[in-house]
């Protein structure tokens, strides 16, 4: 999942740096992830991993780091809402 997620971030996240070199825990907002970036990443993640984010998980916290997005996607895959 990690490589696909980084590729999504590169393509849709409008980050100031390549996502390939980012630490799992790095704060994506510090690297330029903005509101439109969040929407783009969310839509791409939903399509790539066949999940649907419930409103309650559509928070900045969810999209704050690669580790956090991974955790939420795993959670959604194991317990679909």
């Amino acid at each position, binding site marked *: 999942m990690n490589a696909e997620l980084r590729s999504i971030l590169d393509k849709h996240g409008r980050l100031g740096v390549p996502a390939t070199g980012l630490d799992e825990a790095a704060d994506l907002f510090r*690297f*330029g992830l903005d509101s439109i970036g*969040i929407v783009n990443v969310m839509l791409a993640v939903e399509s790539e991993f066949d999940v649907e984010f419930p409103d309650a998980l559509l928070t900045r916290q969810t999209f704050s780091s690669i580790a956090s997005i991974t955790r939420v996607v795993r959670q959604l895959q194991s317990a679909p809402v």
Partner: protein
Amino acid sequence: MEGVLRSQDLAAPMAAAAAGAAEVARAHAAAVDRDAVFPAAALAALREARLLAALVPVPLGGLGLPLGRVGAICSALAEACSSTAMIFAMHQVQVACLARHALDQEWHRHFLRRVAADGLLLASANSEAGIGGDLRTSRCAVLRDGGRFTVRKQTTALSYGAHADALLLTARRGEDAAPTDQVLLVALREDCTLERTAGWDALGMRGTCTEGFLVDAAGSEAQILATPFGTIAGETMVPASHLLWCSLWVGIAADAVGRARSFVRAAVRGDRSGAAPPGGPRLALAVEQLQMLQAQVTASLQRFEAQADAEPASLAAAIESNALKTGVSEACLAVVQNALRVCGFAGYSNAGRYSLSRHLRDLQSAPLMINNDRMRDTTARLLLAAAPVLGIV
């Protein structure tokens, strides 16, 4: 006194100073509009009153006013001269970006001291040919060499560029950077050459002198903000722009309603029949509309202030900010249309105390500066990922 003065201590004298600057702006408004000239006297008055340093933190020699106070000043200035208010608002947004995102950089702290001490006027060089008006995209790139930078940018709409002391300019981080990998930098006027490539003979907002320039800027790498521009745009530049623009648009509409009220009063004075004036109900309608706009803009300013400095912008906040701009820009025009209906041909006239020509022409820019159609596209996309708070909270 440094660090001792609190901004609240300055509120009353600053309101008086703003009113004084507004009177200067009012005296020159017609000529500024007619001749499409920079409102130099009004800006000199604002500088003299230290209001160009309104958002510079107190420890750096500024007034450290909250954004809501600055919004109130924008509104008061706009009742007198829209162009003066817009120039003031745009300047304040640039200062806000530095005060919220660059205080950990020595060069920028020093620069803000100069803004406060010398009353420097800052302009925004964000527009660029060939990017389709997208703030978060740049074509030009910063070229770095031995701690120095150069950048060449073809701007399309650089308001009061010929009159600014410094430009805040967006560019790609480097030659290899993606169009969205942007930095914001401060270019001092003395280190820039500006070649005018487009003039400004517009329907309204004529004193903003929003010309196009080919900008060649150079400086030290220390002048580049460390915070990525995406963060600065989302947390400060975009929301603060929307809030201050809306404040001044409401000011334009308020002056129009004031003129309509004067018109109705004069009509009643001249009529001994005691009948209700024909324009009365529509004047009342315009006041209703204006009250809602005032409340909306004031509440949004308060929510912005309540956030911690440079708190990351939530999706819901971005939706609110966009909706504020698109909604208020069009609603203010509707208010002036109603005022025009009240005043009739006295309002339609280009001259006279009931003229609404300038108000209407100036406000026509509101739905265009970042086109509302494009903004509603963005809002619609944001709504896919966040539910806005719509009830009373």
